[in-house]
């Protein structure tokens, strides 16, 4: 889950005493105008879980309340990346002397935590890593909670920056990363103001989805993800469902096998209509899953591809057969079924659908594509 900048600043950075400019989170243009009335010259920033907000016109400088009202209304009506703007952050302006980059994030390959700092902030870190990798300082924390001011100072050695101040900030940032179950906390830019203060001008925060049960306040503040109606329905039923632009519906078990089914559809010249897996604990939800796949009006044929390890194919096939009786879809279905519960599943499919599953998933997919042409 991603938090919008304003919420990340308020809930993640502020409790650690990390400096920020004075600002207010606003939902309407009128609120933004009132905020500018109080704060004076401000920057109005679109709250949206997408990057490149500035380039998209979602960050604007305003001087008066009247100007703020108009600019705020414009920004609120925008879409940036894949998202509609979800709110505004109105922040006071300040004179910036230097921009830095600071982040704490998971390092999967090292099975550890990575601390990053660069005295050249402001730009995208991937861009900086590609064009000027020597400008990025790194520190790996191998033992959780074992990152001290001394460690931070060691990673900053030789840089022409306020080493004491930035070390203190990096330790605070690491502590918040641990306390909030973060996958990433990034401050870009971290600004040195002309008055000497070090402030977080922006903040990106990603919460570990698996930890929402113990981070309820952060989870409640998470930015909206804008799923389609069917995707939202799937999520509410514990099903991982993603709509795609094609016409071959897919029902499979396990993330790997489901992705592979999509890949084979594409490889053989078809277009997948969805990602829908009912593996793991969801293998009993065949009926609900199929209803979602078939609710997409673009679906012209269906591939059911099961390979049971943990998931029992007989239980999944029964779910499909039950759903078929209720939904009575007017499209052809092509099966490939192997693994745990295979004999019972095949017998049931022969009984209920009058067809024998294909031996190879590639053949089931080929047949499903053929009827869409």
């Amino acid at each position, binding site marked *: 889950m991603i938090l919008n900048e304003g919420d990340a600043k308020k809930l993640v950075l502020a409790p650690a005493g990390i400096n920020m400019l004075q600002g207010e989170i606003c939902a309407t243009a009128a609120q933004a105008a009132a905020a500018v009335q109080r704060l004076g010259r401000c920057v109005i920033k679109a709250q949206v879980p997408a990057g490149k907000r500035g380039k998209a016109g979602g960050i604007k400088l305003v001087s008066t309340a009247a100007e703020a009202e108009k600019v705020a209304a414009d920004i609120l009506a925008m879409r940036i990346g*894949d998202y509609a703007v979800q709110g505004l952050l109105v922040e006071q302006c300040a004179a910036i002397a230097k921009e830095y980059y600071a982040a704490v994030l*998971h390092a*999967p*390959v090292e*099975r*550890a*935590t990575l601390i990053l700092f660069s005295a050249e902030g402001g730009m995208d870190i*991937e861009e900086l890593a590609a064009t000027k990798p020597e400008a990025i300082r790194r520190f790996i924390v*191998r*033992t*959780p909670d074992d990152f001290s001011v001394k460690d931070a100072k060691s990673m900053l050695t030789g840089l022409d920056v306020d080493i004491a101040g930035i070390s203190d900030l990096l330790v605070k940032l690491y502590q918040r990363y*641990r306390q909030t*179950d973060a*996958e990433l906390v990034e401050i870009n830019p971290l600004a040195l103001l002309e008055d000497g203060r070090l402030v977080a001008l922006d903040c990106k925060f990603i919460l*570990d*989805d*698996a*930890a929402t*049960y*113990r981070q309820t306040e952060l989870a409640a503040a998470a930015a909206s993800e804008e799923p389609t109606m069917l995707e939202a329905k799937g999520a509410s039923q514990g099903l*991982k469902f*993603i709509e*795609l632009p094609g016409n071959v519906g897919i029902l*499979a*078990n*396990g*993330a*790997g*096998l*489901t*992705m*592979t089914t*999509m*890949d*084979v*559809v*594409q*490889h*053989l010249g078809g277009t*997948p209509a969805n*990602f829908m*897996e009912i*593996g*793991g604990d969801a293998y009993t939800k065949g009926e609900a899953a199929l209803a979602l796949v078939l609710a997409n009006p673009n679906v012209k044929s269906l591939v059911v591809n099961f*390979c*049971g*390890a*943990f*998931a029992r194919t007989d239980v999944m096939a029964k779910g499909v057969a039950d759903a078929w009786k209720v939904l009575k879809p007017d499209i052809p279905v092509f099966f490939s079924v*192997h*693994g*745990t519960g*295979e004999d019972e599943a095949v017998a049931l499919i022969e009984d209920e659908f009058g067809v024998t599953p294909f031996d*190879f*998933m*590639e053949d089931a997919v080929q047949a499903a594509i053929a009827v869409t042409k």
Partner: protein
Amino acid sequence: MSDFPIIRRTDRVLVQGMTGGQGTFWTEKMIECGTNVIGGVNPKRAGSTHLGLPIFGSVAEAVKSEQVDVTLMFIPPTLAKDAALDAITAGVRGIVILTEHIPSHDVLEFFAAAAKHSTKIVGPNTAGLVTPGAGFVGIMPGHNSNIFKPGRTGVISRSGSLGTLICLNLTRAGFGQSSFIGIGGDPMIGTTTKDALVALDHDENTDAVVMVGEIGGGMEEEAARYAATMKKPIVAFIAGRAAPPGKRMGHAGAITAGDAGSYAGKRKALEDAGVIVVDTPRDIATALAHATKRKSAYNTA
């Protein structure tokens, strides 16, 4: 000495969470398959027996009287960290963690402890390990002889279901398996593709390797660097070519961002290392037959 993450008949396996529904079901299957299960752990039922095996209050308690080479965890996400730390501090050499959705900061903590104790971890979010003819640990149909047959091809897979399908295809084509290593679908896992590749490279029962990758992360790229040094032929399939960027495809690890973790990048890294990358699961056996100069039992032309 255990060959973990390759499972052997001689490995003494303790099942944490054996008395639950899934723990019971799969422990029975493992025993049926020849796995040397020596007991289970459940703090609330210490001192009792289940499936004719002793139940201990903790791994620490079990190792007082039993030699334990491998533990297998049927443990819900919120309790997984404590269970893993129990096994690690008890000195167990290999741990298989099936659990999906363990908070990643808990995972960081037990990986750090595992590194200190030189414990090898497979998973989290793995379907387990299978050595056809010797046994299995996990939730794989290791007992199904249509799917798993003893042989000389090693298989590495992030996914249980896709790994199962690929072993089935190999078996039908006449390629038995020396070992199946399910490494897990999470972004941060104890045994990486490369770690599994090293184990199979050193395994004298393995002549060739099938690697089943997925989009996301950098594990296939890391494995490619090692693959370039190997003499044994490697055939790879990478799932997720048709996945839209930025969407999480079921596995937490299977998400691409920009060019990082992309299908094209992984395929190129592997092909540059001399790995044969195929387009569909059925092509694996054909490519393997070609690479090992053997005949596939079916024609896929």
